[in-house]
């Protein structure tokens, strides 16, 4: 993959040609690849620096506070400016750039986050045309919902009450209960219990907060230090250019030397291991928002100390798998099959967990619920239930206590299965809503407001968003098309079904892969609806791709450098499609966008059960890998996700329209400010 990257400037710019196509427009998404090549390679003729400066911001993925602040504070600039630079020395060796100044030539050669300035400008201007309308639409929608919710919630509550009355109030007791044994020292015991519980909760509250602040500090320090380090390195490398060599080397370097790269690669990325020694309180930012915006450093599972610590806190008993692949040691991997029975048997012991949250956790763990949207909806509905049953303990503030509760639920869910990015966004939204609750609200009002917020989120960001996406995507399906999809994406399914309902004549090629074979269920449903389908496995991708005219793919997340983070295999499909010059359309709701930048699928991924790939269902004779865990020389790798570089993506269909992958940061920024954070 990396080897290809060196040569792929050829295909790079076609994205821009697709541009920002409005919903109605039926411009074919860039069948012409050769044309833009020249356009691009000629387009960045050493552009004016001021322009690059101004257009830097959409690419930079600054944490929102930067973009929202009117004038960029000096610190945020200094923190943000090194972002593209640390990435460059590793990836390219065109390093002789002084810090701070933006070199456009780099952006041409440069990989994913770099966009040729002209196109970027295009995107921005086009986008600014687009945004107000969509913003307006979204807002009007939200207003409507908000107004409709309170009444319905009232209705629901009354219904609940009557239900309870009929259930509990049987006035003719057929048999009375005689209390045989009461816990005698009830008050004492319960008090003790409560004391313990409060203590626990206190711990729960205070600990994360403490951690948070320290993390925030550390982040600030780290960013500053990283900037300094990068500067030093730049300078050093500029002095001795011996470090830079051929084009193939950096690729291999990047592949092998993961550790340093993961440290340096990222600006606002999260994978950087926290260095505890850098703890002095330097330029700490007291701003509260900052704390919230700073992403949590992801747990590094090769850090034994912290893993031990986390284990002690964990609810789910996790025994770590042996024989882990070296590159992926920082990701959690547990022996599958041990967690579920353990968690199930502890069902009644977990007092503070709300039943509905517990249920969702179990469903994640057992794989009953999978798929980004379904998981997110299930989680939000569980939180909604939990909020409904929530009552503020005495002498506590709802805002704080509920936030702590939600955090504890979230950490439980993470133990069951790592969160997807979309879920992270939803949680952020919910926590933000809790934090922003007006203090004048009573508890019940606050609760119903939060519940309606959750409903609104599900409705607007997922259900309606899907409808909009379907509407957009259908315009890209023409009669006689042969559409290829991979795996089982809910949105793509809706698109195909809707297009079929509209009477479009097309055929579907469904590509699937072991071990989950999720596509089969989709195939079943599509065929049942009368669609004409071809089913194949990903091994045959290069053959089936020949006849395909369009590729529709779902995504777990789209990152702000346009990288599509999706089910493993997606990158392969996209690359093959690209090689055959077939447009790749990614269908993804905007709530799944994330400001993170990711260049590979190593630093952040999820590991599945390795046993699944060692066994073949129904073929007991294929047991060559039977006792693989005992063989130290063998490691199995079952990745769940992969990252598709934006170059292979022609277009992202989202609820704000059809955008090139380069416009993702704009969406991330605007979406944040305009919708999510109201």
């Amino acid at each position: 993959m990396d080897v290809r990257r060196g040569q792929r400037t050829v295909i790079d710019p076609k994205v821009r040609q697709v541009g920002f196509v409005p919903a109605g427009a039926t411009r074919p998404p860039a069948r012409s690849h050769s044309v833009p090549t020249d356009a691009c390679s000629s387009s960045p003729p050493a552009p004016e620096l001021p322009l690059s400066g101004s257009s830097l911001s959409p690419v930079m993925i600054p944490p929102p506070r930067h973009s929202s602040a009117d004038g960029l504070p000096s610190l945020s600039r200094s923190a943000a400016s090194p972002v593209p630079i640390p990435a460059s020395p590793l990836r390219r060796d065109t390093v002789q750039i002084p810090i701070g100044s933006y070199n456009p030539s780099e952006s041409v050669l440069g990989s994913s986050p770099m966009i040729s300035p002209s196109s970027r400008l295009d995107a921005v201007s086009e986008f600014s045309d687009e945004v107000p309308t969509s913003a307006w639409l979204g807002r009007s929608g939200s207003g409507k919902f908000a107004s409709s919710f309170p009444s319905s919630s009232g209705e629901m509550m009354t219904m609940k009450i009557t239900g309870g009355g009929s259930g509990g109030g049987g006035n003719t007791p057929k048999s009375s209960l005689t209390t045989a044994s009461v816990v005698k020292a009830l008050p004492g015991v319960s008090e003790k219990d409560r004391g313990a519980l409060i203590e626990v909760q206190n711990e729960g509250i205070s600990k994360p907060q403490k951690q948070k602040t320290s993390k925030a500090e550390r982040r600030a320090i780290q960013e500053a230090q990283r900037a300094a380090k990068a500067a030093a390195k730049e300078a050093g490398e500029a002095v001795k250019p011996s470090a830079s060599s051929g084009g193939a080397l950096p690729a291999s370097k990047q592949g092998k030397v993961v550790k340093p790269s993961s440290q340096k690669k990222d600006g606002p990325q999260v994978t950087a291991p926290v260095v505890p020694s850098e703890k002095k309180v330097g330029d700490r930012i007291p701003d509260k928002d900052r704390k919230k915006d700073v992403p949590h450093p992801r747990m590094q599972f090769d850090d034994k100390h912290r893993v031990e610590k986390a284990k002690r806190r964990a609810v789910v008993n996790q025994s770590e798998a042996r024989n882990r692949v070296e590159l992926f040691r920082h990701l959690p991997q547990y022996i599958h099959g041990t967690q579920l029975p353990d968690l199930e048997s502890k069902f009644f012991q977990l007092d503070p967990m709300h039943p509905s949250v517990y249920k969702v956790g179990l469903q994640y763990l057992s794989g009953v619920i999978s798929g980004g949207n379904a998981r997110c909806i299930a989680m939000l509905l569980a939180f909604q239930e939990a909020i409904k049953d929530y009552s503020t303990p005495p002498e506590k503030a709802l805002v704080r206590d509920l936030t702590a509760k939600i955090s504890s639920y979230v950490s439980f869910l993470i133990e069951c299965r790592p969160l997807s990015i979309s879920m992270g966004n939803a949680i952020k939204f919910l926590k933000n809503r809790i934090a922003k609750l007006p203090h004048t609200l009573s508890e019940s009002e606050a609760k119903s407001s939060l519940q309606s917020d959750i409903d609104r989120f599900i409705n607007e960001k997922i259900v309606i968003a899907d409808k909009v996406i379907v509407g957009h995507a259908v315009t890209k399906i023409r009669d006689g098309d042969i559409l290829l999809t991979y795996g089982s994406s809910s949105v793509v399914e809706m698109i195909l079904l809707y297009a079929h309902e509209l009477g479009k004549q097309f055929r579907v090629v469904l590509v699937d892969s072991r071990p989950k074979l999720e596509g089969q269920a989709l195939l079943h449903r599509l065929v049942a609806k009368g669609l004409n389908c071809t089913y194949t496995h990903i091994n045959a991708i290069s053959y089936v791709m020949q006849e395909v005219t369009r590729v529709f793919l779902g995504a777990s997340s789209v990152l702000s450098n346009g990288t599509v983070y999706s089910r493993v295999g997606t990158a392969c499909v996209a690359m093959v499609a690209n090689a055959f010059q077939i447009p790749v359309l990614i269908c993804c709701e905007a709530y799944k966008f994330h400001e993170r930048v990711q260049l590979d699928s190593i630093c952040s991924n999820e590991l599945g059960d390795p046993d699944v790939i060692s066994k073949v269902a129904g073929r007991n004779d294929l047991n060559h890998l039977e006792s693989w865990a005992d063989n130290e020389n063998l490691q199995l790798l079952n990745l769940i996700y992969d990252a598709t570089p934006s170059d292979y993506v022609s277009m992202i269909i989202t609820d704000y329209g059809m955008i090139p992958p380069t416009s993702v940061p704009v969406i991330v920024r605007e979406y944040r400010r305009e919708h999510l954070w109201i």
Partner: protein
Amino acid sequence: MMDFQVVVLAGGTAKKLAPLVSKEVPKALLPVANRPVLSYVLELLESSNLKDLIVVVEGEDAALRVGGWISGAYVDRLHVEVAAVPEDVGTAGALRAVAHHLTANDVLIVSGDLVSDVPPGAVAATHRRHGAVVTTLLCYAPVSGPSDTGSSAGKDKVKKSRYNIVGLDPTRQLLLHIAAGAEVEKDIRVQKNILRAVGQLEIRADLMDAHMYAFKRTVLQDVLDQKDTFHSIRQDVLPYLVRTQLRSEISANGLHKVEDNANGRVSSQNYVTWMSQHREIAPSAYQELLALSPRSPENALRTHKCCAYIASKSKYCARLNSIQAFSDINRDVVGEASHLSGYSFSSQNNIIHPSAELGSKTTVGPQCMLAEGSQMGDKCSVKRSIIGRHCRIGSNVKIVNSVVMNHVTIEDGCLVQGSVICSNVHLQERVVLKDCQISPM
């Protein structure tokens, strides 16, 4: 507690256990390793942090006795409410009588004669995970060792009634068919639509219904209200629910209500269809039927799920519902399932209370239990037996594979083999007992 309520059905004076149970000793108080059998269930629940229990006992007298014992033994530990129901109302009737006390979302119903170490949480969690209407605990019937008792014909019968014919889906999570082993003589009838829904049905005869059920409360109450002829949970309610899982009549409104509650709003319908469209709950092809059926939510909700939790083979699980089972369980609890008894075993793998007195040349073998205050004369031999409190046993007595309850007097030279001797029995000299049950009445 996780929105679960627990009902323990402790039974009354079961006729099946005729000589063993009596007015003084209802079934729930039958001793297993010198502890009432009910204590095993209560402690299992207690260890799962389930401390608010409703114990239903048949018969006022029995209820008084059980209540008295519980209040003595579990004061400060459990919050137990005892309800007395008339005799012979059956398990369904017993539940009907306490139905109005049930308020939680789900109800865990445990038989009081269960001796097991399967965590009830596992059943409850499976129930929750699938959003099932009923989840039942199935376990591999205990491997009873070569028992020296009982004629082969009798054993056969026991075996048949103990096992169930169970139909499961390929993932072994959905319960598709259940029938008591004794009922099945010639053929099993399986509904076509269920078969079509799952594609593959696995029928097993090595599983036993352990009488631990998690029910959705609304559904349970609906069934009990509507079908007032139902007598037993195991024989009526459960098969009924399993039978009707694809054309559910009762649960249609009940489920609907619940779903509405869960999702709350005007748009709830929207989510429900959305979620069902995306297989919120699809462990297998089972859901395909939902997807194929006309896509109205009414229709989709007309089905309900019956699930099974299959305990692993390493877990012990037995029900004290026959005399054979009584001796088996007593033997197992001091034998292979000794962790259940709660006693610490000596190095000889037996339990001899310090206050017990042994004569010279008396041997107590492994897997035996000798409770407090019992005295044994010289040259006695005890093998694989349980001897209760304050028994007086003379010299030259052999006790093999037997259960001797409290305050029993056995005079010199007796031979007791494979028998159960109830409390206060007096055996005179040189009695030879084989496969007998002796009670003072």
